[in-house]
């Protein structure tokens, strides 16, 4: 990383972000806690994905069932989550002092709140598309009880959807804090979590929506 492309936030004696003043080889406790949580999430989602892959490997006919998922909704939701990730990284960027060392706390909070609002909006939009997709599939008779594939489909996307809902609630709490010009450091664990939700979807999308026209995944 070149020094020209990276600016390091200067530490203020009375910084409102205590973790910025930590030093050494340790990650601040709120980030460390989030990483530990995500470590357990890797096992949860990874276990589901591995089990799905093992079954799908033995059931090439699942490709036909996967062709009944709404690929255009999957693509749209992928774009939505990727865009929300970009906005979330901008939330972190501005709240933690990026984009100019001279920004005041008020301005950082205002910019963070603005971008966080759109992250929340995109999260709700994601859920809207997902709800439409579920409605379409259930009306067509594709329920979790229909086959093992649809059981996996609803379990994995449903669990991911619950994580999106949790992320929206947490982001909402963060957003309120930004509006009150406090707790700007929350953008770090909130961002890490939201990006992780995005990473999970990056794998769920090809697993459940692509490779549906034949062959094994």
């Amino acid at each position, binding site marked *: 990383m070149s020094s020209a492309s990276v600016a390091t936030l200067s530490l203020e004696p009375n910084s409102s972000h205590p973790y*910025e003043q930590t030093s050494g080889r340790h990650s601040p406790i709120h980030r460390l806690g989030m990483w530990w949580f995500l470590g357990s999430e890797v096992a949860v989602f990874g276990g589901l994905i*591995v089990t799905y892959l093992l079954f799908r490997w033995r059931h090439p006919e699942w490709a036909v069932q996967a062709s009944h998922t709404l690929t255009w909704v999957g693509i749209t939701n992928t774009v939505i989550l990727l865009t929300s990730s970009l906005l979330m*990284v901008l939330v972190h*960027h501005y709240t933690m002092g990026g*984009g100019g060392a001279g920004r005041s706390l008020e301005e950082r909070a205002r910019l963070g709140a603005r971008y966080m609002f759109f992250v929340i909006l995109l999260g709700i939009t994601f859920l809207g598309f997902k709800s439409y997709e579920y409605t379409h599939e259930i009306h067509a008779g594709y329920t979790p009880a229909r086959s093992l594939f649809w059981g996996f489909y609803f379990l994995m996307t449903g669990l991911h959807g619950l994580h999106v809902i949790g992320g929206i609630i947490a982001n909402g709490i963060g957003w309120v804090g930004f509006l009150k010009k406090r707790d700007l450091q929350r953008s770090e664990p909130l961002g890490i979590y939201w990006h992780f939700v995005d990473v999970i979807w990056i794998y769920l999308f090809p697993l459940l929506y692509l490779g549906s026209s034949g062959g094994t*995944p």
Partner: protein
Amino acid sequence: MSVAGQSVHHKTSFYIIIWVALLLMLGMSIPLGIEGHSTLATALIFSIATLKAYLVLVYYMGLSYEPRYIAGILIVGFLFVAILFVALIPDMVHIYGRI
């Protein structure tokens, strides 16, 4: 993203470039997934997905700026997944006669 307790910032254009790259890779994987029937297409789709996940992990989540033990925490999660995978193989052999 942070390093040694301090926040590290790229320019906003850098994050936008990453976002464009992610969208381009999504665009590449869609025709592969819809038209692709081969093992090669499948391998390419998941290679692209892994590259996308890498970009998000490293540049958006800032994993490369964290202490190494943070990556170790995630690796432990992957180890549990690997154990589950190995543990499921006898069941698959029992049900299907072979893996």
